[in-house]
């Protein structure tokens, strides 16, 4: 019996969500009194994963795994889990992990519960808490399958630090060829991604038009933040759909979410309410967002945002 984490990497570098997942996996392995195995793709090399809590590392080596392919990765992770007799398998909430996890669950004949927000309430019986109804409620679910697959919600646990080293073993999985062929990838490399961002700056119709978005981009640049928008803004075509956050758009679970000129419709709030600290800037003190925010300024974005950018630049200089 053991716990296995699939630690995602991007061009050979372990992602931050994977560091968090390893720390979560270690805490769970300790709770179960067992060993934490961390499965990584071979290009991760010899990075020190023990510092996040890894005790054993499984290097997955196969030429078909050099770039992401959900069905091939799911097969490889399933074989890693079987090779170490994992009772619990852990994945993150990234787009790629959400893609492969259901296939992995079938491969392991495992119950799968995503969006888990903390360590299991108990391990015998095995009960986990996870968010449902787009973060409007939490459910407690009992998992009774022999192998259990858990997806950890974004920004829910934090990274812990450990001493020691981990031993590495290699595994070459036996793979059926992927059914999907990726013919083109289009990724903005100079922008902070909403999924990974510690800070998200988001704006709504209060900005009056796409020509004013330089304010949002400048603010995001000072903060090292990702930019996002409300649904009406993406429906109007002011900003791309990929920036739409909310119930039918992207979920946000950042440390800081700054909403500018967004009234705070229930569908918007549902998508962003797992962010830790929420700031609202709006001219209308009755805007529903004020009920959901931690800090608020009643004021015009065209006055407040330029001042905020200047003051933040000064703050950054002083605290650099």
């Amino acid at each position, binding site marked *: 019996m053991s716990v296995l984490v699939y630690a995602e990497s991007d061009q050979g570098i372990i992602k931050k969500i994977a560091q968090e997942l390893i720390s979560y996996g270690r805490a769970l392995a300790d709770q179960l009194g067992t060993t934490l195995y961390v499965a990584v793709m071979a290009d991760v090399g010899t990075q020190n994963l023990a510092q996040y809590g890894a005790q054993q590392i499984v290097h997955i080596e196969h030429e078909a795994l050099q770039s992401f392919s*959900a*069905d091939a990765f*799911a097969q490889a992770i399933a074989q890693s889990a079987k090779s170490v007799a994992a009772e619990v398998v852990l994945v993150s909430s*990234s*787009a*790629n992990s*959400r*893609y492969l*996890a*259901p*296939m992995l*669950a*079938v*491969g392991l004949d495992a*119950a*799968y*519960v995503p969006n888990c927000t903390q360590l299991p309430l108990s391990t015998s019986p095995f009960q986990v808490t996870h968010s449902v*109804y*787009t973060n*409007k*409620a*939490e*459910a*407690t*679910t*009992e998992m*009774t399958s022999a192998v259990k697959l858990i997806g950890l919600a974004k920004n829910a646990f934090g990274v812990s630090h450990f001493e020691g080293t981990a031993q590495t073993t290699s595994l070459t999985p036996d793979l059926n060829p992927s059914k*999907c*062929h*990726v*013919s*083109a*990838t*289009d*990724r*903005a490399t100079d*922008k902070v*991604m*909403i999924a990974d961002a*510690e*800070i998200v700056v988001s704006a709504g119709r209060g900005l009056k038009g796409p020509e004013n978005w330089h304010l949002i981009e400048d603010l995001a640049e000072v*903060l090292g933040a990702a930019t996002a928008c409300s649904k009406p803004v993406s429906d109007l075509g002011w900003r791309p*759909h*990929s920036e739409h956050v909310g*119930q*039918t*758009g992207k979920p946000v679970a950042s*440390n*800081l979410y700054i909403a500018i000129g967004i009234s705070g419709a229930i569908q918007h709030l*549902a998508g962003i309410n797992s962010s830790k*600290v929420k700031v609202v800037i709006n001219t209308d003190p009755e805007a529903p967002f004020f*009920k959901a925010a*931690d*800090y*608020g*300024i*009643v004021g015009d974005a065209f006055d407040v945002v330029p001042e*905020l950018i200047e*003051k933040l630049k000064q*703050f950054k200089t002083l605290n650099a």
Partner: protein
Amino acid sequence: MKILVCISHVPDTTSKINFTDNNTKFDQNGVQYVINPNDEFGLTRALWFKEQQGASVHVITVGDAQCEPTLRKALAIGADEAIRVAVPATDGLVVAKALAQIVSEDDYDLIIAGRESLDYNGGMVPGMLAQLTGFAFVNTCIKLDIDHGKALAVREIDGGKETIEVALPLVIGGQKGLVEESDLRIPNMRGIMQARSKPLHVKELTPVATTATTLSYEKPAPKEAVTLVSGVDELIDLLHKEAKVL
């Protein structure tokens, strides 16, 4: 081409979420049910294939008779036949296995489901169904074209998108982008009348045992009131010293 669209019957996005029976059941009181929005984008794309390229469109849901009005709505906007699998939708794997059994009895080329449902947010049924049936799978799909048994799909990835070439049969986990919000259809009177005479098959199956049982629900504690600040200096100070996010 034969298309199956998986429909989830979910509370409308503006619904108040409450629980009854000692927090063990969702409170349906006053709740309006709709076609899950991610599924509706997929259904609308399926109807586009039907009208532009020739296809038959079946819709399916797993659940009790309460789901039938949602299936009738799908028929009213243009689906040809509906199937309700009379199995309690206890968890994602149970639903996927029930759907896989129905799929194995027919010859579908394309299955479109939503990326996730708005109630349980599991996002697992499409991928599980693909794995169980041996169909290919593309998740978070924002564009789909089909030509002579081959699909060209665009998938949203963290920070961008990728284009995937894949042969049918295929399962799609769809979302906005498959069609635009403005392409969604509202049933008209003629459609509603026609839907009454379209077939709605009820299939009885022996469900597999559930391995994930939800015991209870809890709503988050009410939030503390917002701290209104008078100016930018105070905001930066609070974010730095109190919230510790700067």
